[in-house]
């Protein structure tokens, strides 16, 4: 069996003490799983950092726990659930899709849909308002005005000046 060593070197900014986590993994997949998990789990103390990135004591504890669980053969989702059970949904950067998170997951799509409907609606209503004001069906003519008398006059003028 191949042993993989992972050295995580994290330097504490305040004390300038180097804290070094050394974890040993029994397989490459477990190392990869550990790395994915520590990037997906969020540090409860120093928010906006994942636990791989954070040197807070709680993040160190969480890394140790992730290592233990991964080595014990727990799946990715099991480890995430384990952390959510203790620290709440805040702890994952990928919140599960549930009724409380629908707004988060589907909200942007709803807004895009509303925007598209609005654009289609507005462009349609403009075309219709021209048509109902009495112009002829869309011809090749590039210029159109309100009613057929004006349209005739416009065409006459265009003809006159294009002849000059």
């Amino acid at each position, binding site marked *: 069996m191949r042993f993989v060593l992972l050295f995580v070197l994290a330097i504490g900014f305040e004390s300038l003490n180097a804290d070094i986590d050394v974890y040993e993994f029994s397989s490459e997949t477990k190392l990869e799983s550990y790395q994915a998990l520590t990037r997906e789990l969020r540090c409860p103390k120093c*928010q906006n950092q994942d636990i791989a990135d954070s040197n807070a004591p709680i993040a160190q504890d969480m890394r140790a726990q992730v290592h233990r669980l991964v080595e014990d053969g727990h799946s990715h989702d099991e480890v995430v659930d384990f952390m959510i059970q203790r620290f*709440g949904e805040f702890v994952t950067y990928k919140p599960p899709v549930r009724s409380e998170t629908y707004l988060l997951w589907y909200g942007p799509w709803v807004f895009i849909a*509303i925007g598209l409907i609005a654009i289609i609606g507005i462009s349609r*209503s403009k075309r219709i308002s021209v048509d109902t004001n009495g112009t002829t069906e869309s011809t090749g003519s590039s210029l159109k005005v309100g009613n057929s008398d004006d349209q005739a006059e416009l065409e006459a003028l265009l003809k006159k000046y294009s002849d000059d």
Partner: protein
Amino acid sequence: MKSRLVFLTPLMLAVGLGLILYTALGKDPSKLETARLNDPLPTFSLQSLEYPSKLLTNSDLGGKPSLLNVWATWCPACKSEHGYLMALAQQGVPIIGLNYKDDRAKALQWLDGLGDPYSLNLFDPRGKFGFDLGVYGAPETYIIDQNGVVRYRHVGEVNHRVWEVQLAPRFNALLKE
């Protein structure tokens, strides 16, 4: 009518979204939801702080509403709340102390010097029970009901204001249950 709807819909959406975001404005983002809320305390078997040979478990909790205070000698806010905890203990509020990721000798020295407000002193030097409970920094104070269920958590210092506004109403309600 139709054109009014076209203009009002985006306005209403913007106002609605604004209201949702507005409710989150005053929130302190460092205060997390309590994952263990309304769950029984995780099972533990911890040494007593004073008597290393004595193992304490969930059955030692006393079966009445109490506070569970997570503290450590390395935590400055724990020192500033200590006096208030002493006052609460004198009023007869049972407080279970969880000494979290600390050194036993230092912790005992602290209690000798500043007084011991705790009815029970749990020693969790590796923070294992704290981790199961979801502690992410000391001090934290939990309200535990008579059945050992977590009913509330306060993160940060306990002082008169916190007690009066957040803890006392919930604690007193439990006493009446």
